[in-house]
């Protein structure tokens, strides 16, 4: 039987892939978990940027957050490593193949406690990696213990009060040498998407701390990482828009009120200024706004710092352009003459 049904044109991105190509397996995290919203934004960002899934490597440590790479880009290689040590695995992966686009997903326990050492050295190296902290201030997978990003005074479901100050991973990242540092909120679709797209376009460590309420253990009155607390206390640094290098989106900004940052691939980040002039290329400014926010009990979000000049770790190592992993034997095994030369020098 002949059919004349015409299918509506399929939605595809600039490389002809449908959104489904960026999806992963079904999430096994709790319904309503902030991490799932972040997963959705990651899918959207990679789709919109038209990144070929095979060019990406997904990396993670251990914890609820670290499960989430299974839930996006299912056809992409992923590595769920050991607790707190994703940075080293990511480093090895990107040294072996510099053409990969690395995205690492970690949590606040995985990053700020067990993994703080590797986190620090990753930031310091400015490895070209998107590093996302899905930050809920608690250990979800072991049933809700405080993490090192929990705010002082926040209360666990069972009444335990946190009396230690939080580690601000963004302040650390800025201080240590990461070249793209931002904080967002899993529920802020527009801001998170723009920041993720900017991170994809950036070449260097892009560190995104995303407040992501834990609906099971840390979404209640006493928590400063709950939906209601963050919604009430979110203080965006500015309205952020991302213009990809291939895009011609008209942005509804008054030129006088925006700061523009051009990223490595030609994409642009536009930041609409709020009540004060904020310059995301100044480290001191970044640290100042973060400290002020802590003092006021606000959760400040937005792009704190960006530096497109700093060479990445891969640049510093002066590695050949092709992936080291697949260099042919002729490039990696020196000829007989080299061995002879060494042997002669030892006689």
């Amino acid at each position, binding site marked *: 039987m002949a059919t004349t049904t015409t299918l509506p044109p399929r939605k595809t991105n600039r490389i002809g892939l449908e959104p489904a190509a960026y999806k992963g397996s079904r999430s096994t995290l709790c319904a309503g978990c902030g991490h799932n919203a972040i997963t959705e934004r990651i899918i959207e960002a990679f789709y919109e940027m038209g990144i070929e899934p095979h060019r990406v490597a997904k*990396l993670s440590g251990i914890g609820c957050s670290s499960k989430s790479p299974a839930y996006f880009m299912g056809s*992409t290689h992923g590595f769920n490593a050991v607790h707190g040590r994703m940075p080293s695995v990511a480093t090895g*992966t990107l040294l*072996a*193949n510099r053409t990969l686009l690395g995205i690492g997903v970690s949590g606040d326990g995985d990053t700020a406690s067990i993994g703080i050492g590797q986190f620090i050295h990753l930031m310091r190296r400015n490895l070209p990696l998107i590093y996302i902290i899905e930050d809920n201030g608690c250990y979800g997978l072991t049933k809700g213990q405080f993490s090192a990003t929990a705010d002082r005074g926040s209360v666990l479901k069972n009444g335990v009060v946190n009396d230690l100050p939080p580690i601000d991973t963004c302040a650390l990242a800025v201080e240590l040498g990461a070249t793209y540092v931002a904080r967002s909120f899993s529920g802020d679709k527009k801001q998170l998407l723009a920041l993720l797209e900017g991170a994809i376009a950036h070449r260097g460590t892009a560190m995104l701390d995303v407040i992501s309420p834990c609906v099971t253990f840390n979404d209640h009155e006493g928590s400063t990482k709950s939906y209601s607390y963050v919604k009430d206390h979110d203080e965006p640094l500015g309205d952020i828009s991302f213009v990809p290098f291939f895009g011609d989106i008209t942005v509804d900004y008054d030129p006088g009120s925006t700061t523009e940052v051009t990223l490595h691939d030609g994409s642009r980040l536009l930041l609409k200024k709020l009540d004060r002039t904020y310059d995301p290329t100044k480290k001191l400014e970044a640290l100042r706004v973060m400290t002020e926010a802590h003092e006021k009990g606000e959760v400040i979000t937005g792009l704190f710092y960006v530096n497109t000049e700093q060479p990445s770790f891969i640049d510093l190592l*002066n590695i050949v352009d092709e992936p080291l992993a697949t260099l042919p034997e002729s490039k990696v095994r020196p000829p007989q003459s080299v061995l002879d030369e060494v042997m002669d020098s030892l006689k």
Partner: protein
Amino acid sequence: MATTHVAPAESEVAQQPDRVVNDLSIQVATVNGSGSQSSNMVLLRALFQMGIPISGKNLFPSNIEGLPTWFTIRASKHGWIARRKEIDFLVAMNAETGEEDVRSLEPGAACVYDEKLNLKRLRDDLSFYPVPFDQLVAPVCPDAKLRKLVRNMIYVGVVARLLQMDMGEVERALRKQFKKKVKAADLNFKAVLAGYEFAEKNLEKRDRFLVERMNANAGKILMEGNAAAALGCMMAGVTVVTWYPITPSSSLCETLITYMKRYRMDPETGKATFAIVQAEDELAAIGMVVGAGWAGARAMTSTAGPGISLMSEFVGLGYYAEVPGVIFDIQRVGPSTGLPTRTAQGDILSTALLSHGDTKHPLLFPASIGECYSMAIDAFDLAEELQTPVFVMSDLDLGMNYWMSDPFPYPDKPMRRGKVLDAEDLKRMGSFRRYKDVEGDGVGYRTLPGTNHPAAGYFTRGSGHNEDALYTEKGELYVRNMDRLQRKFETARRMAPGPVIEQAGNEVGVIAYGTTHWAAIECRDQLAREFGVEIDYCRIRAFPFTDEVAAFVRAHHRVYVVEQNRDAQLAGLLRLSLAADEISRLRSVLHYEGLPIDARSITDSIMTQEVGN
């Protein structure tokens, strides 16, 4: 065994020949940081160039300047290059240890010493040679700041004269040592000559020890094990090297950096065909190896016991997620910080089973610098073919000391990269299952990140997984996977280097591995010459053990497993691998004082144990 007689034969004790040629051990006792390493190398190299089989062992403290250090040179016309306990010729430069050093000498030994130390008073059964080092160095080296360093060159001249060394070779060795620094070489050679002339005029030769030119070293090289391993890694095509400094392993990666910068820069682009990273700790070093191995690079790290302990968790991940990587363990004395600058074979058992859960790993046991080189190459092939971490178990004695060898052969086989599917393969096959045992050898096919095919990607995890690399907690699937890993270990058994066996139907056998080999073969000679006891020998070169090892044990009534640790660690691994009637034949000879094992200790232990049989 025929004899129950333990005392060594008469000839060893009573008759002292007038001349002992090319058979002595020299010990130089100095303070570290005093530049004695150059002087000692000149002595060692000059003897080597004279064609006499030698070895040089540096016994040093975990310190940069000011503590006692000893350098021992053994020269043996018979080719025995293990450490000898007995010192024939002492150079005593260290006030702190001088008296004890002299007291420990065998009767008839010679002692060159700094006149100020007044050691002559201590014994009357030695030949003493006092030398006024301070007076001799002043005219040679007007610059007072350099004197401390040049002073030690004077004993080279004194020893050269007393042993009748070839001064042409001494000068050649010195100039090689200082390479292009001609001024420094000239200054130092002046000091050597000052010592030589002083000895010629003032010291009457009274001891028995001499050296003469031989021709045993034609074409041979002199090198440290860590440098040989580094060369092996470069020739193996390593591309990612991550490391954290630790004694006695650091010189492996440091030498590798030198080689790679020289020989592995792409001639067309001037860029590196490698990445070398000094990591923040051993956890990160092995994590980077795992990441790089997963992404398809030939990746390695090098460490010692404390680093191995730290790497435990990641090594378990490498085993379970099946990621290749090469780890060098340059063993030192544990537990804990232990004796960081002393040697041992003390990480065997813990490394074989490193990490929690059911894990086990192939180990290679190099005994020589030649094997440091060849096993480095083997290790990368094995790691990629087996998709698992592979350990090369060297030690401080091998890694940091100087050994002779024939020149290393160029690799005769191309690199074996293992079962890796590329996009073309996948196009043909349509799909693949990461952990499916297709060929029955327990090794699945893998793809690398970046492979341009929709079926290429899979999710690697240290949690339970099925053949498709998907998460599962099902007991049945867990068992199937673990049993496959066991099959893979059987494949490793077939692929690993087999033992070297010398067997002539004797009742007693000896098993040794790594650097213990050199003392073991000398012990065989001692047993034969002094006691008329012939024994068979099996040198194990890898874990898992091949079937030949069990056959060797079965073929003997008693098998002595000789090793440098307290807990008989390799014997323990053998016990896990052998049948009950084989296990009952095992005995142990153990040496764990931190100094390299010597033949006499093995001979004594075996003869003592044999008395009961």
